[in-house]
């Protein structure tokens, strides 16, 4: 007697041929879509490598930008980016983590204020980056804050732009800390803030750091929000914290716009430098996530 198992396997082995063929076709189409996406990235990097290879040397980051392609480099733009990012980190980390802590630790799920803030952050994440540039122009560079076209203006604008990224990542990291840790700490007489500072924050630092790194790597590559802020592409002096600013993507953008083929080579090399920075930062974030993330 064959029994139920025999009947089942007989029925299953008689899956209609048409379905099986369709399944194979479907699987190949899916594989093709993945291949196209990966090929897109490969072509993008490959094309710039081929075009920019001849300018990919140390001169690229030791020479200042110039109107003569042979002498142009990223030096001042790189220093400008570093200054901008230094201020971004100073503002981004406390503001992002603070907002996340408030929403996760102090806000109740059902409270109107919490919901309002949540929807707000979701909306802000979808606002086009150039609109942040206009906000920076109309609110920070000019009255009411009236800071002028300086590094701090650029930093504040970029901070607001990537703040939602950090808030979302930090919230997830904080949420992943189990309540039993908090309750244990509170039961020992710690106050709420002591619990957060000594238990919740240390446990969620890897997740928060990952979010911060990804946000910074996005901020480094952003060009559009800096355009309305009066960014200079040629700065003859070494940028400092309170001077006018320039930044890497702006220098690359200025090269992209030049018809001179030597500038095109330079632009390709500049794009490669920016992608390299991105890859290094993302790899670090992934490593951090895998290395320190704990499951409870």
């Amino acid at each position, binding site marked *: 007697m064959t029994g139920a198992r025999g009947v089942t396997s007989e029925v299953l082995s008689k899956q209609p041929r048409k379905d099986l063929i369709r399944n194979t076709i479907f699987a190949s189409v899916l594989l093709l*879509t993945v291949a196209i*996406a990966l090929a897109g990235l490969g072509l993008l990097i490959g094309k710039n490598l081929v075009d920019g290879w001849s300018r990919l040397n140390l001169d690229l980051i030791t020479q200042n930008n110039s109107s003569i392609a042979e002498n142009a480099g990223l030096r001042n733009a790189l220093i400008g980016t570093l200054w901008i990012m230094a201020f971004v980190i100073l503002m981004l980390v406390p503001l992002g983590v603070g907002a996340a802590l408030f929403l996760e630790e102090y806000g109740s799920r059902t409270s109107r204020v919490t919901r309002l803030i949540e929807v707000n952050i979701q909306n802000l994440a979808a606002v086009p980056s150039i609109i942040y540039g206009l906000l920076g122009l109309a609110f920070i560079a000019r009255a009411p804050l009236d800071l002028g076209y300086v590094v701090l203006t650029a930093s504040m604008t970029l901070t607001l732009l990537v703040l939602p990224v950090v808030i979302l990542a930090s919230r997830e990291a904080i949420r992943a800390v189990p309540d039993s840790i908090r309750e244990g700490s509170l039961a020992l007489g710690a106050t709420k803030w002591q619990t957060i500072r000594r238990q919740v924050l240390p446990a969620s630092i890897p997740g928060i750091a990952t979010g911060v790194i990804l946000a910074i790597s996005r901020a480094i590559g952003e060009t*559009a929000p800096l355009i309305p802020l009066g960014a200079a592409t040629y700065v003859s002096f070494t940028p400092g914290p309170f001077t006018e600013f320039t930044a890497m993507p702006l220098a690359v953008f200025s090269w992209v716009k030049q018809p001179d083929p030597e500038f095109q080579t330079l632009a390709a090399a500049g794009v490669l430098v920016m992608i390299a920075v991105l890859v290094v930062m993302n790899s670090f974030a992934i490593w951090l996530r895998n290395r320190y993330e704990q499951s409870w």
Partner: protein
Amino acid sequence: MEASGLAASGHAALPRRLEAPSRRYGEKVVYGLLAACAILSVLTTTAIVISLIVPTIQFFGDVSITDFLFGTDWGPTFTPASFGVLPIVVGTLSVTLWALLFAIPIGLGAAIYLSEYASPRVRKLVKPVLEILAGVPTIAFGYFALIFITPQIQKIWPGHFLGGPPLIFNVLAGGLAIGLMIVPIIASISEDAMSAVPRGLREGAYALGATKAKVATRVVFPAAFSGIVASIILGISRAIGETMVVLIAVGSTPNLTFSPVQSVQAMTSFIGTTATGDIPNGSTTYKTIFAVALLLFLMTLVMNLISVRLVRKYREAYE
């Protein structure tokens, strides 16, 4: 909530005081500071709205709303100036259309592959690469469109088809580059939604004799629909708001055309070329920029509201 809330004097007789020794003002300060951080997001939105609306209201003092919204002639910096916004709205929408035609099939295909077909090893390899793609600076996509995609299009485009031959700056190249840019957004959010579909649903379908393809398209896809829609709408928002790609690869000629191989001006590229730091406050050009930006902001806001509603409507909650 806090220990200090329980504090009441006069229990000195108890052997061990459980209440806090002080009023814990520090705790309240911390609460206030954290609340301020959270409120900043609301302030940012308010600041964006105010900074866009005030110049826009002044703008509509100079130009009538109907001329702006329905006019087909865009040349705010020309003399005589014309303020019909339609050409640049159509420019933005046609770039977005081509981006989506590329990104939706590729992104969803990749999502289904990663969630249903890929082995854990392949997934671990492909996902970080997609994350890199998601982080590539937008200026790199723009440059790629200009130096790689456009020449390919010019090579293979069949003559006068759809308004050809293709120009150096054209809609299709920018659209494809933006499409490549939003593939990872659609893929990763959709994949999350598909992975969240419980195993039991898939196993039920397999038990009924369904093939993998059927499980993916008839069970997992509908069950993850709300997440998929959310991912596509976020992709649309990104495409509408993308500035550098259209600035570099699509050009700045405000033509009212639907041809994919002509040069147009998108709303963001108008803002990007016109809004440089030195424009005088209160000039008509300055106000025009903010009027266009407000329209752009409203478009992404509407997208987001649609997304929130659709997600709520089609959400399937699994425990």
